[in-house]
């Protein structure tokens, strides 16, 4: 598995640029050109956040710090629902934090991960590792809701033992530069992986969803990423699936579909399949297009005004990703949350 870039906000030489292939469309150094001053200490947030309505245990970082001042959380999650929150109130400063999550044998966990801020031109750098033991199951639902002038990078590596199940849905609304990156090694042996994403961007926001999946054994991977982009916003989707020699019987499917609602918006997509094994089923599809004029006219001819017709079509378009969220209480929060964002976009 190709390792993620390790950004250290104190050291400019670690900042990737567009000359680094994995960052060609998200030039970090262009938006952060000098070391970030440490973000101030702030009070721990009230428990809750976007998923407050769901009963859950909670770990909350405030400007990258836990209540005890540490910047790294070690979590063993042996069941139930857990909220992991990154709350930022900072301007012209930054934080970096780490989270190591272990899901023991046979445990089944839902993780509600949120990036929250009321505003500011901050730089955030979160690094997460997930380790799922035999037969463990984790559903990770990520909401990135950050200010238009923030820079935010979240990088995760995922290790899976036989029989583990990992499902992920990332919803990104962009920032000056917002990147969500996941590296996952799929060992086969009954492991199942779902890696979904959704981006909703307006203004001049930028969101980058990058995934690197490496199949070292056979097994199944499903990936569906969709996005709606308007204004002068820019979305980046990089999805790589590598099937290593010996990972025979791999069954991997990747889709990326984007809707461009304005002429000045941009979507850069790079789906990659590299296959070095036999008896492999791999498929990828990638589309970028505008709303279908004929469908729009059909809906309007039934009496639905233009804006509502567009909302109906875009909601239907992204609804498929939301519908794949397995944990119903989260789906019921993400659905309306996404719908509200879309209304502002259309």
């Amino acid at each position, binding site marked *: 598995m190709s390792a993620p870039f390790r950004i250290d906000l104190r050291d400019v030489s670690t900042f990737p640029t567009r000359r680094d292939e994995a960052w060609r469309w998200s030039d970090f150094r262009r938006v952060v050109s000098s070391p970030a001053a440490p973000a101030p200490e702030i009070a721990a947030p009230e428990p809750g956040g976007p998923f407050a309505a769901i009963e859950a245990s909670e770990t909350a970082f405030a400007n990258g710090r836990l209540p005890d001042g540490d910047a790294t959380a070690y979590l063993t999650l042996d069941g139930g629902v857990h909220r992991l929150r990154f709350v930022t109130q900072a301007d012209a400063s930054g934080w970096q934090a780490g989270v190591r999550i272990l899901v023991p044998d046979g445990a089944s966990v839902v993780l509600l991960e949120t990036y929250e801020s009321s505003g500011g031109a901050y730089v955030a750098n979160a690094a997460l590792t997930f380790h799922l033991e035999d037969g463990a199951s984790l559903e990770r639902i990520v909401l990135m809701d950050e200010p238009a002038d923030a820079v935010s990078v979240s990088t995760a590596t995922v290790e899976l033992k036989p029989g583990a199940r990992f499902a992920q849905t990332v919803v990104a609304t962009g920032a000056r530069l917002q990147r969500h990156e996941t590296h996952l090694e799929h060992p086969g042996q009954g492991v199942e992986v779902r890696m979904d994403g959704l981006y909703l961007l307006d203004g001049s926001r930028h969101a980058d969803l990058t995934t690197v999946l490496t199949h070292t054994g056979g097994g199944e991977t499903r990936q569906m990423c969709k996005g709606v982009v308007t204004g002068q916003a820019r979305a980046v989707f990089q999805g790589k699936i590598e099937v290593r020699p010996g990972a025979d019987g791999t069954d991997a499917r990747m889709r990326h579909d984007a809707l461009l609602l304005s002429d000045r918006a941009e979507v850069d997509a790079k789906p990659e399949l590299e296959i070095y094994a036999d008896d492999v089923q791999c498929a990828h599809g990638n589309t970028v297009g505008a709303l279908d004029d*004929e469908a729009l006219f059909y*809906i309007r*001819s*039934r*009496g639905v*005004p*233009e804006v*509502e017709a567009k909302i109906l079509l875009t909601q239907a378009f992204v609804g*498929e990703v939301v519908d794949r969220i397995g944990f119903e209480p989260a789906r019921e929060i993400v659905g309306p949350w996404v719908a509200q964002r879309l209304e502002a976009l259309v």
Partner: protein
Amino acid sequence: MLSIKNLHVSVEETTPILHGLSLDVPAGEVHAVMGPNGAGKSTLSYTIAGREGYEVTDGSILLDGEDLLALSADQRAAKGVFLSFQYPLEIPGVPALTFIRTALNAQRKARGELEVPAPEFLKKVRAAAASLKMDFDMLRRGLNVGFSGGEKKRMEILQMAMLEPRLLILDETDSGLDIDALRIVAEGVNAMRAPDRSMLVITHYQRLLDYIKPDKVHVLAKGRIVASGGPELALTLEKEGYDRIVAEAA
């Protein structure tokens, strides 16, 4: 009811398709517009419904004296215009039930009426689906997704029955239908005949008019109405083809 005078329409600002088409459909009447391929039949239906890109360079379309050309497609629908599409679109992710309810309530809102209560809506849509021999579960799936040609046309008639338009335009409704489906669709249309409702049946073939009996038949060729008559005109066309009548009119 519907009054079209001297209608000139171009598509994409280049090709004039309709040149001076005039047509009156009084309330309660069913008129057929027949014509060969390329005569401008679909252009006529799209222009009445208000599709963008169909530029009216001259003439007028009035519905009960009101200028339709000043209205957008959705505003026209709220005034009672309904176009049954030759090729109904598939809208994945929008269940037919949601679609019809959204449309109905949008029209009611535009007319300053209250939304239809959910139980009343469901009762009505169930009854309409049953009379069209449609499986109600189909209405919970994405609109027209994976439907056969006949199922799509029934869905059009179901929408029509729910929206209760004043002016129905049926654009080649018989295309892609076998005889059984044609009969069900025609029954659905005939059930909607009413003294305050008019219909424009646009078709290439006479076959549909065996099931939906028109009061009048018009022949559309080269962008104009070149002949009008009673239902017998359709039979003449079926026997002799379009060539003679179009040549005579030229």
